[in-house]
């Protein structure tokens, strides 16, 4: 099995994620875009693991880590979005200026 097509897939997926992160206005979609990027990384991890065949299976372990962290992150992220939506009746990231000085 060759590595290159998988890496290309992961790169495309990552780029999609970056585009979504930078271009979408809806906070939920931004979060989804982040998920895309994380999953692209996961694909990379698995692919390299499959090639190297490390005895400790480091790649797979890391992938599971990332999935776990991503789940937690999305959970917190959605909670924040929900709260902001409740307070401001919008989920548009442009209108979030709470982090301004």
């Amino acid at each position, binding site marked *: 099995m060759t590595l290159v097509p998988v890496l290309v897939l992961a790169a495309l997926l990552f780029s999609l994620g*970056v585009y979504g*992160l*930078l271009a979408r206005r809806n906070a939920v979609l*931004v979060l989804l875009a982040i998920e895309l990027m994380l999953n692209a990384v996961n694909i990379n991890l698995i692919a390299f693991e499959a090639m190297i065949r490390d005895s400790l299976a480091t790649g797979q372990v890391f992938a599971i880590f990332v999935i776990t962290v991503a789940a937690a992150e999305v959970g917190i992220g959605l909670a924040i979005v929900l709260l902001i939506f409740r307070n401001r009746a919008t989920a548009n*990231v*442009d209108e*979030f*200026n*709470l*982090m*301004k*000085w």
Partner: protein
Amino acid sequence: MTNFLLAAAEEEVHEIVAGTGGFFGEYAWIMLVLPWIAVLGIIFFGKRMKYLGAEIAIAMLAFNTIWSTILFVLNITKGVVYEGAVVIAEIGSDLVFELGWVVDGLSIMMYFVVSFVGLVIFIYAVGYMEGDVRVTWFFAAFTIFAGSMLVLVGAPNLVQLIIGWEGVGLASYLLIGHYWEKKENSSAGMKAFYTNKVADVGLIIGAIMVGATLGTFRFSELSRAAVEHADDLALVAGMIGALLFFGAMGKSAQFPFHIWLPDAMAGPTPVSALMHAATMVTAGVYLMARTFPLYQNLAEDIRPWMVAIGAITLFAMGLLALVANDIKKVLAYSTVSQLGYMMTAVAAGGYTAGVFHLFTHAFFKALLFLGAGSVIHAVHSNNMSDMGGLRKVMPRTYWTFLIGSLALAGILPFAGFWSKDEILVTLGHEGYTAVMWIAIAGAFVTAFYMTRAVTLTFWGTYKGHGHPHESKPIMTVPLITLAVPAAIIGLLNIPGVEFGNTGNFTTWLGMREVVMGDHHASAPDWGMAAIGLGAAVLGILAGLALYARDRATQQERDEFEIPVLYPLLRRKYYMDDAALGLVWLIKAPFANAINWINDYIIDGMVNTVGFVTSGLAHLVYGGLDQRGIDLGFNAMAYGSGGSGERLRRLQTGQLQQYASVFVGAAVMFVIGFVLFR
């Protein structure tokens, strides 16, 4: 503070000179400590007492007078000499600070003068200050002076001398500014303190050099090292001598530091009598006498300079007394002039001569000031133009003042004659012939201005307002008490005349550890005596010639160019003309020139220094500090604040803006990684 001394005295007193002190020598420190207890007593209880605290001070001084008289008798009969000290600090490098007391001929004489003259003046002051503001405070400060002066003259080392030295300076500041509601009085006090402080720099550095060179501040060690021509001391002796003399010039009002003394007359008259005539101002002469072996053996190079300064002082300041209208100023300039005599004598090598003049001068000048005070008290003015004709209404004051004047002028049996004569003899013997003639001319001037003062004050007709009358006995009795020594005390030191087997003043004064090598005549030098006396008599005659005739105004009497010159010319041709011309010559150009120099150059310099310093101060503070250094720090603060202000605009709070920066940076890293791997 006494407890400390007492507690320490039990264990740590160590004798420097073998203990021939006996009880009175070993406990002589009581004289130095007692005044301070008296000060506390006056401050805390004075206001409740009948004479507002004066009685405490008087009791203290009476005790000291008795004690010093006993010491004197023991000293001349049994040779009691003692020096004791308490260590008050060990400061490293084997240096110690000590407080102590000296009992030897010189210090006993000073103890006696300070205590006895002080006692008389304090009693006088009870009458003089009656009804004044702050009488208790006056006596407290006056007692601070007496205490500091005793600490000064009893000092066995330079550090203690400095303590007393600045202590008397402080008392002088307080008492000159006694009527401090008026700015000129407080300024006069400041001027005195400050002029002295400038001169003290010399004393302090001199003391430091002595301590650092010899490892001790003791006078006895200094004298010993000087007599033995110790090498390390010889190297710096000239410097030390010059510095100590610099300090002495300030306290003893030598030219050009004399400027503070006339202004110091702003204080109450008893203060002028005790401090600015009899004792405090002689501290510089005392210092020179104390360290005499240094000048005698090692610091010889600078002695001609010291003599020169003394000579300038004695002559130029005497001339200034000719033009003063304020009777206290006349006496003040006279004091400066007499201090010049003392300084000249000590500097020329006449230890005994200088100190003897100090001794006699203390009595007759104190007497003159008290007499002047009595007059001022009666006419409520300092100006001689408001006086005149007081001979009849104030007979006791007149006669005592006259005795004082004759003593100061140097007329035969009176005190001043003997001491001045001794100075002239010493100057002649030591080879300062020119200075000797200046001193003789000075004697002429002295007699002249005293005649003028007596004439204007007591003779003629009264020109002031009100009805002056003789002062109360509490003021006249001190006058009489002082008139006696002023008349006869010079007899103590007639060359060749000895009192039993104890010798005379010269021997008594020599009662100290390191023997002086100064010149003593074995028999009176009648030739010199005649010259000195002649100068004095001439001065009196000149004074009488000009002032004996009563005239209505000061203007008329003093500025005799036309109105006085004319009748005199009419009456007697050449003699008076010559005398007058001479006097006029001396008086108008020289005295006025010196007066001008005094007011414009020296005072001007002082003022210039003051203004320059003040200007510099504003420049340094306003320009350098506030706009310079502080500006730098403020600029740093505002710089960082301002850049923060600008930088924080980057923080927009826009999530996606942050993300794009982040992604952009990541891309840059990747590119960098690929390119520069």
